[in-house]
């Protein structure tokens, strides 16, 4: 129990620091920024309670916000992601699998896991960009940012999964 918590706590800080010091400075073509920190939320066990998921999501987002001077923006979108994660997992997890598993390329298969990860980053990225720009003045630019950011995030998640296997 304690070990699991410490492990999650370690991942939490590694991901937040990495987001703050490295990934926030990445802007492919001036549009795409990867938000890899959501990896933590994606990896929680499938039967984790919705309450702790939400609290982890909020805290994680808030930590990233404090580092990037965007109070509330990441917190709101990470909470939304934490809220929708059980539904996403139900949609993409194989039906004949075990009841309790940690989502990964291994446990779900590459295809389903990537679909799950990309859908999750799309949800997160949409909320994030909407709150960040807070106007519909340039819908096309926004769409481009959402799609490219989600793609890049998925790519990063896939890369981490690949190296951890």
């Amino acid at each position: 129990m304690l070990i699991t918590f410490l492990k999650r706590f370690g991942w939490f800080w590694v991901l937040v620091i990495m987001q703050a010091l490295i990934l926030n400075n990445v802007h492919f073509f001036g549009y795409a920024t990867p938000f890899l920190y959501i990896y933590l939320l994606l990896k929680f066990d499938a039967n984790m309670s919705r309450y702790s998921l939400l609290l982890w999501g909020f805290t994680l987002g808030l930590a990233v916000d404090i580092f990037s001077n965007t109070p509330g923006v990441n917190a709101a979108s990470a909470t939304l992601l934490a809220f929708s994660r059980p539904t996403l997992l139900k949609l993409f997890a194989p039906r004949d699998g075990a009841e309790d598993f940690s989502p990964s390329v291994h446990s779900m298969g590459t295809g389903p896991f990537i679909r799950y990860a990309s859908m999750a980053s799309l949800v997160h990225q949409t909320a994030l960009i909407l709150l960040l720009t807070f106007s519909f003045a340039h819908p096309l630019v926004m769409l481009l940012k959402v799609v490219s950011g989600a793609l890049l995030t998925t790519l990063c998640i896939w890369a981490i999964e690949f190296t951890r296997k």
Partner: protein
Amino acid sequence: MTVPRNNDIMRNLLNFLFNYGYWLLFLLLEVASLLLLFRFNSYQGSVGFTSANRVVGQIYAVSAEVSSFFKLRTVNDQLTLHNIHLQAENKALREALKDIQPDAQEETTAHALQEGGYDIIPTHVINNSLHLPDNYITLDKGAADGVSPEMGVVNGNGVVGIVYMVSKHYSLAISLLNSKSSISCKFKHNDYFGYLKWKGGSSQHALLEDVPRHALFQKGDTVVTSGYSAVFPQGLMVGTVDSIADSNDGLSYLLHVRLSTDFACLDNALIIANKSQEEQHALEAKAIKE
């Protein structure tokens, strides 16, 4: 006689809360996030939720130390170039001065500022962004060093921003690259003025708004601070006029200004404290009231 007993109602309610309580938690957290988002603009106490807080400030300070080490080479090159320019300028000025008045005093910028009622606090930029709709800069000096909100921030090349919030040892400045930034600027060679704004896009360009239609200027003219706002002294470099357009209502000019500060590589900066700023503010507030 099927009146539901109190017991049942309680149990149903508890069941409901147990099964759907996460909806409540979700809404609660979202409301909390949005409160943070909307209050950030007006609430000074929220400095703890920015990178100017103690822990985050320290982390960024370490990271900035490391990366500034790698930037040394570029900085060196820039300094050398700057030095050559200054030497040439110095030489030209000395010669010009010799003709006019043989006993004039030499003054450095910092010295000149101090003479003009401004205090200078040297600082380092430890965190900075370019691509958000509202960019902020974290500096490694805070209230303990005499920094307070509304002080100007400049570096060797030009204006950088205005201090927004301060914690004990760090402060958060609004970069010129922020929709909230509005700096009163004028042309170097005459006194027509406008407001410098930024509306996203390139980190090297900003807009000069509200320049009157009868103002005299041309492309390439230098734009400097006007000194009207008491944040910056008059005559600090801001940029040069890049292109000229009409404002939406057609009543004034809208100028694209090429900023002289390179926001992509900020490191050293100066915070300017105007000693008489409070007095000017009090006077202006009084005038508005009456």
